[in-house]
């Protein structure tokens, strides 16, 4: 049952990641619910829509955030749903950044490299289209 353990369990990192994920999902869910309610109120329907206004198309994720912050959106329901989606997508990205800071603070070189590799690969993938 028992194995010889070689490390402690990074309690600080785990708590920090857990809080970040909770904040991210709660904020995202609240924005999505508010957006759904407003859109349903405006359209008078709870149907899945196929209107072009509910579709998102962008060059890449960072351009998507930039354009969202720069231009906003006319419809409050769609604006709230888009904001919720951005937060949902950003949450796991931010947890990698948080981990990188943690390992840097702990001067854990092996995991600084691993986390940095993940961060660079992830950033590149978010720039792909």
């Amino acid at each position, binding site marked *: 049952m028992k*194995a010889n353990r*070689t490390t402690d369990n990074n309690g600080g990192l*785990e708590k920090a990641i857990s809080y970040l994920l909770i904040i991210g999902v709660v904020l995202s869910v609240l924005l999505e619910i508010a957006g759904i309610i407003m859109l349903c109120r405006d359209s008078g329907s*709870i149907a899945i829509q196929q209107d072009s206004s509910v*579709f998102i198309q*962008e060059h890449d994720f960072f351009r998507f955030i930039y354009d969202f912050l720069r231009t906003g959106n006319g419809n409050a329901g769609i604006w709230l749903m888009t904001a919720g989606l951005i937060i949902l*997508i950003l949450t796991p990205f931010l947890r990698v950044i948080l981990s990188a800071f943690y390992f840097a603070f702990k001067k854990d070189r092996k995991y600084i490299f691993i986390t940095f590799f*993940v961060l660079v*690969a992830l950033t590149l993938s978010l720039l792909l289209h």
Partner: protein
Amino acid sequence: MLNMLSLGLLSIVVGFIGSLTGIGGASILVPILALLGVPLKEAIACGMVAIIATSSGSASSYVRERIANVRIAMFLEMFTITGAIVGATITLYIAPVFLYFFFAAFLMTSFLGLKRSIAEYVPPSTQDRVSRWLQLDGSYFDEATKETVDYRVNNSLFGGLGMLGAGLAAGMLGIGAGAFKVTVMENILRMPPKVSSTTSNFIIGMTALAGVSVYLSSGLLNLTLMAPMAVGTTIGAVAGGRILNKLSNRTLRILFYVIVVYLIVQMIYKGITAL
């Protein structure tokens, strides 16, 4: 008929199952949406939201309770993201049809570890140098057995290659490949079932994230599909994340194998129809 309310309720069930088994949930949700009349490509694109929401929703509990192992996840993410990027790139040039059969065959190997994964976890007697150097070990308190389970990873480089394959499959087929990851973790890395499922849950969000821009540029992301899916799967995943540790390994593995059988059938069907 499918509307935002019924989709939200359906997503709660999918998020719940996904969080307990370590699969993203999109592989369950997408065929159902397609059956209910949602265009398939639109359902697949929006499915990535279900994967990310399931991952973040459940991992908030798993990480706090130290069932999911952050170090192991970070190490494996290097491989799975690289695989996902390569997969998404080469899928433009190579037909993924044979990957469906490869994926189905690999999932069948998960049954090789059936007896071991249902029995009490026994850590490997030895640990390879790389795993030891990377400190790939840990412990968690199992609420079902009321025992602290200490574990350590073995064969980390082979496991990394397995994760590269999982990432490749995810990038080429547009899936989270959670079942693939759980199988690698249990059968190659020799991790306990609960740690495998929860660490897979932690990783799948990252693999799905790697495909976000591809889907954004496709113009297939429908907010009225994604919003109820995000809300439902998050609620389901948070609920699943709170009960996983109270369930026995046996119950969790039975649920996992039921899903694996469903996925094998789905993969073979897709492969045959794509030939």
